[in-house]
């Protein structure tokens, strides 16, 4: 049965070996599920979040994986709308990764809120002013889009393909793909933006608050930019990683290079705007409400180094690496650039969530730190394990990389 499901023309490891490799991930999934039970049954006191650290590991994780998952919509946009056909070879993988990132984020969110059963109130009676309402709408709609995009990939499975009606359905879906890609891009644009906006609008938190540009705070656009800059890098990295682990050539190198190039260009643009934004914030926005740079960067360990690290080492440097054709051509440099780019966006999300909350705004409040509990960590790892498992199965049974077959036969 297993053999019959595997994509025609490629080889996969033995089923037993496959399952053995997945066992640790299933264990993580199990522990995470138990932690989830504890949180649902006894409440969020099982976390180390508190009245000041209202957001913790989970929200940070959500922001980070949603940024990295941006590769899905952005690759789709490039392929279907801008007709960059070289990305056809990674689009399926990108969609699966996108789906994993978004569904994982939503799973973490469901545990994170105090009364998940009431979450649908937002859809029913939203507060139009709230960035979070916007996030909720875009996130749930985009997840639906991703699911619809996922369906044709599933239907390309060797066995499922044999059902005639499925074939017809898949064909029809293909016709609407450009439309879906467009809708997905729009939704993504808004939710990446509103995730950034969520913090940029906090006029009570001078560390997070930013000037308004076209109705939205500047972080709205910076989040979109940084997400689409890091997204291709993440696709690049995962593709390379899967190829390493499976020991197969999955895509031609020029695809990866092209992903890297796009990442690089966008990163440079992002760094430019981020620098302007930081300067405006430190010299105008924040001092206007009585907060100097020292108030934001005067607490160990969050010195000004963290801003320099984010902009220079994890922004400018990978940007320069990736736009340089010679460097890009060498796998080690390409990967270094991609890793730094992803780390940069992850650090940006960390600063936005965690540093904002740890800094005191009340003049007499303390600088606080936070360490997640085992339950928080377990649920975080559970989402990762879920991603690994879902991706592994998809990789085994679905044609994630159309180029693999020809590269294999070569």
């Amino acid at each position, binding site marked *: 049965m297993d053999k019959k499901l595997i994509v025609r023309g490629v080889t996969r490891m033995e089923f037993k070996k496959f399952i053995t490799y997945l066992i640790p991930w299933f264990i993580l999934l199990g522990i995470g599920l138990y932690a989830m039970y504890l949180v649902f049954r006894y409440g969020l006191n099982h976390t180390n979040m508190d009245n000041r650290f209202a957001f913790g590991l989970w929200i940070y994780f959500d922001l980070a994986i949603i940024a990295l998952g941006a590769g899905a919509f952005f690759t789709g946009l490039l392929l279907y709308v801008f007709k960059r056909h070289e990305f056809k070879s990674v689009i399926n993988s990108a969609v699966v990764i996108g789906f994993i990132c978004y569904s994982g984020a939503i799973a973490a969110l469901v545990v994170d809120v105090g009364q998940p*059963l*009431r979450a*649908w109130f937002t859809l*029913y009676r939203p507060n139009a002013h709230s960035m979070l309402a916007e996030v909720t709408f875009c996130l749930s709609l985009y997840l639906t889009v991703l699911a619809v995009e996922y369906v044709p990939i599933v239907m390309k499975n060797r066995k499922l393909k044999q059902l005639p009606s499925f074939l017809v359905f898949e064909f029809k879906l293909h016709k609407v793909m450009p439309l879906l890609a467009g809708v997905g891009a729009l939704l993504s644009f808004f939710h990446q933006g509103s995730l950034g906006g969520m913090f940029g609008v906090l006029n009570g938190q001078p560390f997070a608050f930013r000037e308004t540009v076209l109705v939205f705070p500047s972080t709205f656009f910076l989040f979109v930019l940084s997400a689409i800059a890091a997204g291709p890098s993440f696709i690049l990295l995962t593709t390379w990683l899967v190829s390493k682990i499976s020991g197969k050539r999955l895509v031609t190198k020029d695809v990866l290079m092209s992903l890297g190039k796009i990442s690089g260009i966008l990163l440079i643009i992002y760094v430019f705007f981020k620098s302007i934004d930081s300067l405006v914030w430190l010299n105008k926005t924040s001092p206007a409400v009585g907060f100097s740079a020292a108030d934001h960067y005067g607490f160990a360990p969050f010195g000004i180094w963290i801003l320099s690290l984010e902009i220079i080492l994890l922004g400018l440097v990978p940007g320069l690496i990736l736009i340089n054709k010679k460097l890009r051509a060498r796998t080690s440099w390409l990967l270094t650039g991609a890793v730094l780019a992803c780390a940069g966006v992850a650090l940006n999300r960390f600063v936005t969530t965690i540093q904002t909350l740890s800094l005191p705004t009340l003049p007499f409040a303390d600088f606080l730190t936070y360490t997640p509990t085992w339950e928080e960590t377990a649920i975080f790892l559970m989402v990762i394990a879920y991603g690994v498992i879902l991706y592994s199965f998809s990789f085994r049974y679905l044609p994630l990389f159309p180029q693999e077959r020809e590269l294999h036969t070569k």
Partner: protein
Amino acid sequence: MSKRFNRRDVMKIVGGGIAGMVFTPIPWKLIDDLSIWTQNWSWIPVPLKGDINYKYSICTICSAGCPVRARNVGTQPVSLWGIKNHPVNNGALCPLGFGGHHLAFHPARLRHPVKIVHEKNKISTEKVSCADIISLIRKNIESKQTPQTGNLIAMLDDRPGRTVSYAYRAFLAQIPNGTYITTGTDETDSMQGLYEILGTENQEYGFNIEKARTIVSFGAPLLEGWGIPGRMMHARKNGCRILQVETRFSHTASVADRWLPVKPGTEAVFALGLANVLINENLIDTDKLSYQSANFDKELKNYKECIAGYTPAYVAGRTGIKEELIREIAREMTTETPSLVICGREPAAGPFSREEQIAIWGLNFLLGNIGPGNLIVPRRSVPAGASFSETKLASVKKISDLPDHSIRVLMIDEAESGHAIPWQLIERKLVADNPLVISMSPYLAGMTKRADYVIPAPTQYESCQDIPPSFDSQTATYAVSAPFYTPPENVIQPTEFLNRLAEDIGIEKTNGSYTDMIKERTAEIYEKKRGWIYIPHNGRLIETADVFTGQQFWSHLNNGGYWIDEPLEQADNYSISLFGISHDRGSFEKALRQIDKSYPSENTTYPLALVPFGWRGVVDSGPVTPLITKLYQETEFRKGTNRALIHPETGGFSRLRDGAQTTIVTDSGELQVRIEFNDSVMPGVVHVALGPDQDSITGVKEVRIKENILSVCSLKDNGTWRMTPARIGTV
């Protein structure tokens, strides 16, 4: 139409139905209901519903006796409030008072007489009958003890002056070796030094705080609960200045007009330094003072010679307060007048010794504060009531005055003074072999955990209790705390217990119920027809003489009324003795030298000075409202048990980290504490908090005898433990 309806069609319909359902309100309604119903677990409380009405009574948590107005649902009080503009306390209520109505439901509540089984560091309880306990006491009373092994049958009462106190004393007077004792750790004890100076035993004095412009407080937590808290708060609001002489940066010290952080144990030296400046700079009104007491000139001459050595320069060296500041303070006391000097004490750090008290109170005499119309005014005592006026009463003794190992049977009345009582203070007076300790307490908490048997007493607002005047009250007052609740079935009123015991050993019982005794007392007050009674319902003061009958007077009192005596115009004649009546100059000087030597200690093993601290009403053994966590655990506004505050430099010396778990080691043992760096602490001093233990807040399933800082403080023979040489160990 020939096609048959097959399995696939069924599945299609079901599948389609499920998919379509999402677009109907049904699943959403179900989720909504689920989210509502998951809020209704059995442990989620629902407030009572019913008629709202108001009742008046008096809080009995501490000896201040603050009037309260209870908001009730039916008969159940749901909140307590002060009574605005009340003449006794201006309507203030302390945080503990706000939770008074919670105490009846406290998780540490006992509802049956129990025997306490002491295991190692842990206790458990067994139900027993009251009769068992009585027969045990009888056996102990009847058994012939040789004097060496101790034979006292003692009753410990930390709130003397109540009707029940008189009942105890009457009972004890009838049995051989019956002894009535107080711990001498309450605020009244701080007055003893004043009474020694005045040479009066029976004349009570109070303070006219409202008139004071400046108060120099020696360690009194004036703004945190001292005397009747509302009076001091009111005075503060009206601009009364506070100069706080205290080592620790307490809440009072931090908002006082001046904080004078003297080195621990040098408060008396500081007071003598002030006296020295007052006398030598001729800042005192000698004419007025010599008019007040006959022997003044001789006394002053003597005193001046005695304290001649306490020059500002010398005192500055001892106390750490600058010489010029000492002079400035002394002058301020005579310019920002009237100024009152109060000898207080930290609730956890224990009282000052008698000699220190004399040194401090003496300043008041120099300032001319004593006497009717001044700041320290005489007041009448409240009569004990007809039942006790003819009866023989056991005399009041301080526990530290008893010989060690002399108490065979100790009965403890658990009405709290609000101040810390180290268990060693009591333990060292108990006989070594099998002492019998019986606690009459509503709770298994605090000191009761050390007892062998517990008779469950009624708690706040469960029985009629009387309120004698607080020690600081400038006139006699009297009030009755009317009950809101009926006590649980097996709860026994202490007087009822005494009656059963009296019946068992064949001595005279008291007349009638406890309420009757209180009624008799009010009758006697009414008969004098003096003073006023404050009626809380309409906020009016009625002259006692205008109340028609004794019954009516009782009914006013029983509904939250407060009787207030007229000021005493003429006090007993006193002959002043600035060394105290029990001292002459020689012995006073000797005692002073002793005090002066106590800090800094030259002990290199124990280089630090350990001074405990806490909050009145919380540091004693009684339970507190569980909501007190709002000020402790949930905000750390006040420091919880075993938190050790230390100056970072002191900590750096011992290479400690902030927040580290470590031990405090003294001669008496060691204790686990958590270090907290605080640069407002005097270097070289460690302050360890005595907060409410978990049993006293929420009760715990497994009752443990937790060691607190008092167990490692060195307790002196005079019953004080203000400072202990200590060091910080590492774990």
